[in-house]
């Protein structure tokens, strides 16, 4: 069969390609959620004890698919702590071999924590988001222009560029009334993350629930993932929509006892505010807080003392956290902000 392509169509294609050449911004949507459709959120975690990131990625993806059962995935959020892009790419290859790469989002972190424990080395954790009751719109903004700028020296440029990136990201997600939560995973470590949040709030409004974390900021480790590929100087936004509600709480701490107690208090506040049955708990936590713990497990135990062990827990150790900043440093009326030394809880409930 012969195909016809009109000249105007070709011209339009060329124009679009040229306009996006400078930035590889990208967006996709799963389509709207069905009000009474099922919502399934599952978390799996795999530590690579064999020095084989691809096998670890494949194993984690297979575990996630198994955990989801027959529920189709809308998106998968990756938190990984493998060293260097060579191994990160191998990990992604393993995940992409099982899960459609278009659904694979996330970023490099300093590790994760789930009901299975805490990781800080050669490990991957996946959050599966699935079911017809939840809609996912995801976006990637690249070439933010702030990755190599230094806080304290380039503040004005950081603010301007990340405000712009945040607006591009939120605008590209094409917000709807069904939206409930924006998850940001960003190459914008604390305190840069505040500007990215402000940019998204310029589109979504100051009271829209936003949570998330900043990618690992170590040299050579800073990547976010979109459609199964790694990007630098970029941010990923995952907008969840549907017939559910979210409850957010954030706490700040800088020493062992306070890290444990604030984790407990923050989890309690979020659980208390949640309406309905909790479906999952997201916890974007600070790697610095973790470093103050005598034992990683102590903070996890404090969280589990509140949320129990049955509700899936997707915890990430980040280079900056997004959510309701602690009252001790809250400076605006916005629901969420970007900060450091925080644990930011979100309970998704229905």
């Amino acid at each position: 069969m012969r195909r016809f392509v009109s000249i105007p169509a070709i011209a339009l294609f060329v124009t679009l390609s040229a306009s996006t050449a400078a930035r590889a911004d990208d967006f996709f949507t799963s389509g709207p959620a069905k009000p009474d459709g099922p919502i399934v959120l599952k978390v799996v975690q795999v530590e690579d004890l064999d020095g084989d990131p691809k096998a670890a990625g494949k194993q984690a993806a297979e575990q996630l698919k198994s955990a989801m059962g027959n529920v189709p995935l809308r998106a998968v959020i990756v938190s990984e702590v493998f060293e260097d892009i060579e191994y990160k790419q191998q990990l992604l290859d393993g995940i992409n071999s099982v899960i459609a790469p278009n659904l694979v989002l996330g970023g490099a972190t300093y590790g994760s924590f789930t009901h299975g424990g805490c990781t800080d080395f050669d490990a991957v954790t996946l959050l599966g988001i699935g079911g017809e009751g939840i809609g996912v719109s995801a976006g990637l903004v690249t070439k933010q222009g702030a990755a190599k700028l230094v806080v304290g020296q380039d503040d004005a440029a950081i603010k301007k560029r990340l405000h712009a990136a945040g607006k591009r990201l939120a605008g590209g997600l094409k917000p709807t009334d069904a939206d409930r939560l924006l998850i940001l995973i960003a190459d914008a470590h604390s305190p840069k993350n505040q500007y990215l949040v402000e940019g998204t709030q310029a589109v979504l409004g100051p009271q829209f629930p936003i949570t998330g974390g900043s990618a690992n900021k170590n040299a050579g480790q800073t990547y976010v993932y979109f459609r199964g590929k790694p990007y630098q100087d970029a941010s990923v936004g995952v907008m969840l929509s549907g017939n559910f509600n979210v409850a957010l709480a954030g706490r700040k701490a800088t020493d062992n006892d306070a890290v444990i107690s604030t984790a407990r208090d923050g989890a309690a506040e979020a659980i208390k505010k949640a309406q309905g049955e909790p479906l999952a708990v997201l916890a974007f936590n600070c790697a610095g807080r973790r470093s103050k713990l005598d034992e990683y497990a102590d903070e996890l135990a404090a969280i589990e003392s509140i949320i129990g062990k049955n509700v899936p827990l997707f915890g990430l150790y980040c280079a900056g956290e997004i959510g309701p900043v602690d009252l001790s440093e809250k400076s605006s009326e916005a629901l969420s902000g970007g900060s450091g030394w925080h644990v930011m809880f979100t309970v998704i409930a229905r």
Partner: protein
Amino acid sequence: MPHNQHPPIASPVSIILSIALTATVAPAAGPVTLHVRPLPVTPAHTPMIYVLVENVSDQPYEGSIRVELPGDWKSVPDTRPVELKPGERTEVSFASEGGVNRADNRYPVTVTATGDKPGTTADTAAQPSPPAPLPAGEGSTADTASAVSRNQAIVCASAPYFKPEIDGNADDWQDAIPVRWQSDGKRTTLRTYWNRRSFSVLVEVEEEDLVDPSVSEKRGASPAAKCASDRVQLTLAPRDDTNKRFEFTLLPNEKEPLDGAELAVRREGNVTRYECMIPLRPMRRDLRPTEGREFRLGLTVHDAGNGATGPRDVGAAMGRKPGSLVLWGMCSSKY
């Protein structure tokens, strides 16, 4: 002295004498001694400020501790109360905000202890003083009837995350945090990096010549010959376990001081540069390398040959006893 000549032998006695001279400290003049710990992360990362307070008097001490930081850098809260029994010591912590990093990594601070009760400033000059502060022992005390005040120049003692190429060049070390001190007018600079697989140091030693043990003795040289050569002793240890330590000796003629390690030694002008990467795997369980963790580090440069200064010790430079291990942080990368 050219490095192809036989190095002079430094006897153990002369090394011990050097240490003893370095260890001389000023007597205390107040009821408490004060020492601000090095910073585990740079000021821009809002480090905690830790003040070691020791009651060196024979009476209980009640008072408050205040830390004054440079520029707009503030401690939170302004003051902290302290109560100490005679001879008791404690660590008082402050949060901080508004700090700005300095390229020379030197931050002048003033810490003051103000007594609440009459009689708490009894003269206790016979009591030992706390270690002098950083670097090269810089610091001073100024006591009044009610207060003991100490000026210190503190540094950030921390290893940013990075993997340098071990080639003897300093090109990769621009984002490291330098700790510099002088011994008999000769500068030593220590920089450190870490990543999840290795720990790296760059030690730049200003010295008249490089005395290499291989020039006079082949590998397997006698201990005396090794002692007479230039070398760097590095110690890594867990933060809280004083029974464990990992020791390394970096010799100019060794490229792989232990399995998996890399060492490059290069001399430029009057500076010898030791660049070394040590695998963390054997120490991982003890050092627990992650962002924000602290461990203890010791480093002694042995300067032999013409114009030798003898041992140059980072612990002594930070006001501790020579050979002391100092708390060292592991932080994330610069940007």
